[in-house]
Structures are given as C-alpha cells and as structure tokens.
C-alpha cells in the first residue's frame, strides 16, 4: 500500500470530490493551522494596502502636514508613528509603501515563474537522456550554478548599478535572481515525475513524447514552484528594501520601506527611533506572512496530511 498503515486504518468511506469539498477542506485546514491563518491575514492586508494604502492614510505619502509642519516629532495623536526628517507622516508612508514593494515583488516573482517553470520542465524532461536537448539542459544547469554561486545581494546591486536605479530595473534584477530557484524546483519535480509509473503507463498507451511532457509531466510538476513563490514574494520584498536601503533601488523620496529605514537610520543615534522602526516592523511582518503562507500551502497540498 502506498499509504502508511495508520492512515489506511482511519480512512472513511470514499468521499465525493468537487470544488466545494476542496473549499470546505481549505477552511477546515485553515482553522487547524493557526500560523497559516495568521499568514493569510498578513498577505491579505498587504494586498489591501498595495491597492488602497496611498489613499487611506491621514496624510499623503509625500505630504508635509502644514499645521504642525515639524520634522522628527515623536508618535502622537496627530502622527501615530511620528514624522520623519522631512516632516512626512511615517504612518501614512508605511501603509503606502506596499504599493511599491508588493508590486515589485509580485511582478518579479510572476516573471520568474513564467521563465523558470518552462525551463525547469524542459531540463527535467530531457535530462539524463542522450541527445542535444539533454546537453542543452546540462548547459542551462551549469549557468544556473554560476548565477547562484554569486551572493544574491551583490548580484542585484551590480545589476541595478549597471542599469540605473528605477522600479523597472529592480524588477528585472529580482526576476533574474528568482528564476533559477523555480528552474531547479520544477526540474526536480519533473525528473521525479518522469520516473513515475503513470508516465510509463501513458507511454504504453501510445502517448507520443509531446503528450507525455505536456499532458502528464508538466501539470504534475507545477506545485513545488507555486508553493515556493509565496516565500519568494517575501524574499523579493526584503531584497527590494535592501537595495533601496543601500541606494540602489527605489529613488528618494518615494514611500518605500527600505528607503524609509535607510533615511531614518541616521536619526537612530539621536534617539529618534520611529522613522526606522515602524517600516522595519511592517517589512518583517510582511515577509514572515508570506513565508507562513508558503509553509501552510505546502502542508495543505500534501496529500499525506489529509486525513
């Protein structure tokens, strides 16, 4: 039997399938796994802020409160998170930042998936067989080795400083960084699916190689990359912030977490902690949220957890 003995023992009658059952299970799973729920809430909030953040703050992200008009005031009823060295309201900027950070992260991850998954499937399908496609897939892997051997941050820094600091360039750099991960994950899944019995069965049914690759191997090889993409979004946010922090990302004076932390860092030693701390907190929580969702998705999709 493919499943562990205990699982077999507590199996019930064969359930009917369908989307409603999947959704019911999702809800059941979410209630069981509190961390996943926390992650979902954080991810949901971040997406909400990316859509509406710039409009719902008490001030505009780049608006100086003419009433108080003072830079570096501490948290108060007027300015919940205080004001920064320019006099911008920190709270308004913190909740506006996902508009930049999240869009960069989502765009780069989506691009990386679009490039990485097909390449990975190609490498997995042809790997380990004689012929030119196999050599190509080997060559691809060696290139990835070189790419991944570079410290990820230095590489992004070099890329952005070579092409200039702009939102588009940060997306390009991140795509370049993330794609190899998806190539590897998809390749691994495809390789293991290639040796599955149902692939043999398809060949025995007379399926041509094209059908084996696109109808059997590829659809079953997507899950690892999709699960990893949640964590990747968190990573991308972190790197975006990092690049901005060192001045190679989003240009001043846009509302972006890394930039805000960097701008505020100078005031830290003067005891003015709020311009840096709040964006840092939001950054950390968001990255964690995406990581939690990724971990939860992995468990959710793992059939052996499904009893």
């Amino acid at each position: 039997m493919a499943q562990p003995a205990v699982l077999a023992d507590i199996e019930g009658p064969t359930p009917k399938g369908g989307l409603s059952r999947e959704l019911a299970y999702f809800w059941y799973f979410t209630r069981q796994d509190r961390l996943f729920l926390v992650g979902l809430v954080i991810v949901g909030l971040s997406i909400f802020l990316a859509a509406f953040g710039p409009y719902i703050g008490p001030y505009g992200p780049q608006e100086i409160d003419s009433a108080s008009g003072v830079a570096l005031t501490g948290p108060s009823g007027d300015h919940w998170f205080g004001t920064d060295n320019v006099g911008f309201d920190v709270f308004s900027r913190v909740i506006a930042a996902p508009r930049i950070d999240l869009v960069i992260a989502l765009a780069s991850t989506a691009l990386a998936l679009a490039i990485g998954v097909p390449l990975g499937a190609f490498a997995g399908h042809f790997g380990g067989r004689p012929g030119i496609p196999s050599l190509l897939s080997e060559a691809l892997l060696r290139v990835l080795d070189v790419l991944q051997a570079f410290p990820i941050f230095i590489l992004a820094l070099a890329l952005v400083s070579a092409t200039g600091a702009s939102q588009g360039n940060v997306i390009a750099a991140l795509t370049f960084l993330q794609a190899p991960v998806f190539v590897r994950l998809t390749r691994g899944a495809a390789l293991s699916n290639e040796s599955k019995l149902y692939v043999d069965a398809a060949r025995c049914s007379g399926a041509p190689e094209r059908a084996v690759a696109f109808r059997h191997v590829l659809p079953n090889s997507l899950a690892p990359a999709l699960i990893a993409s949640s964590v990747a979004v968190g990573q991308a946010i972190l790197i975006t912030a990092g690049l901005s922090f060192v001045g190679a990302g989003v240009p001043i004076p846009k509302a972006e977490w890394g930039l805000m932390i960097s701008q505020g860092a100078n005031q830290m030693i003067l005891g003015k902690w709020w311009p840096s701390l709040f964006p840092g907190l939001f950054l950390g929580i968001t990255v964690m949220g995406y990581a939690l969702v990724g971990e939860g998705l992995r468990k959710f999709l793992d059939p052996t957890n499904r009893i």
Partner: protein
Amino acid sequence: MNGKPLLEVQGLVTEFATFDGVRRPVDGVDFVIQEGETVGLVGETGAGKTVLARSLIKHIKPPGQIVAGTVLYGGRDILQEDDRGIRAIRGKEIAWVGSNPRGALNPVQRVGDQLADVVQSHSSVKRSDAIARALGLMRMVGIPDPLRRMRAYPHELSGGMAQRVVIAMALANEPRLLMADEPTFGLDVTIQIQILDLIKDLVKRTSAAALLVTRDLAVVAHYCDTVFVMQKGKIVEKAPVREFFSGAQHPHSLALLKAAFAARGEEVA
C-alpha cells in the same frame, strides 16, 4: 500457553478527528492475551488493526486519541502511565516490529551500535558487554557473518536482513510480549517464511507472547494459536486457530476465509 493472562484489554476506544468528522478505528475492543500465546489479529485494510496495536502501547499521536478503556499489563493500566512509565514498558516489556525495517533503523548508524544502544537503554551494562550481547543477538536471529554485519549500515542490508536486525532489537531485552505489524510486508515469499519461522522459534524459546497483525489468513493458520478477527474497529470473532479454520461463526470471518480460499484457487461451501 499456561493460561495466565498477560495483557487484558477492556472497552478500548481510539478516535481520530478528521476533516470528515470523528472516526473510530478502534471502537470498543475487549480481549485477553495469555502468557506465551501467539495471537493473530486479522482483518482487511482499514479494519483498525494497526491503530489497535499502537493503542496498546499508547503510541497514538494527535489528531488521534485514546478516549476510553483499560490495557492491564501486570496489574498496571498502560494507558494511565506517563511518558516515563511508557518508555519503561516499550521495548523492555512489550516490543514492536513494524513492516518497514529500514524505516525503523537509523540510516547513519552501524547496526551493531544500534543494537548495543538498545541493550543499554534498558539495563546498565558496560559498552563492551552490550556489544558482545549485540553480537549474540545477531547470531540468534540467523544473520550470517554477524561480526562483519555489525559494522554494516542499514542500506547495506537486504530487506530480510534488516528485518532480522529489527527483530534482534525487539528481542534484545527479552520482552514478555512481541507485537509484529505485518512483519513480512514487501518481503519475498521464501524470505517471508524465514522471518515468520524465526519469530515463531524465538517467541517459543523465550516463552514470550506475540501479537501478529496481518491481512493473511495463511500466516495465521501456520503461526498463531488464537485468531482475533477485526472488522470496522471491533473484534467480531475470537477463536483457537483450529476451531476457526474448521468452524468460524461470524459472517465476516467466513467472508475472509472464502476470499483466502478463492485466492488459493478453491471454492468453499
């Protein structure tokens, strides 16, 4: 068999909370295992055999839970023991052999060391003595060239050899009850016979009792004194082996027998 009860189980219920509601793989089970008796617990996949066997040594993890019943062993209720009490019983008094010997062995430790560890875990002997005892155990379970095999890692052993090592571990502290859950699953027929013969022989030699969990009535016919038939969480028939094969009563027992004979290529009335 000397008619003295070794393990008395009463009203045992184990539940699992699942997405589809609460399931009871063990639903009110009573039985007694006598000293020196070999009991065959048979049933189809999903009957609850494995959960029952695990419940006996309180080896049920969430979302599973033992919700009722007593398991009396030597006057104590195993289910009331704390973790420490359970550890003292498992391996020492009641030993377990599963169906996946390689999974039961530590892949990065030599089998001789693992055996010696087991010896030391329940008695305070010197390492050198434990290793000497481990060698004796390897010999006892019929592993050829035991001195060399002591230094082998689990992946270097065949499935049959690995299962012999697991049996040696189970018997290292001379338990009073050996529980074997499909111990020959995945092994070849000729190896299956060797392993079952080995278990039977060792159980007899140490006059221990055994609970053999299996789906195969043929195994029960040849290696057990008593049969417990399990269906949907309940034990539906208990009988001495010969009586069972000549005159089983419960409809499910008859269905199992019929299937077993049909598999052999014979019809039964």
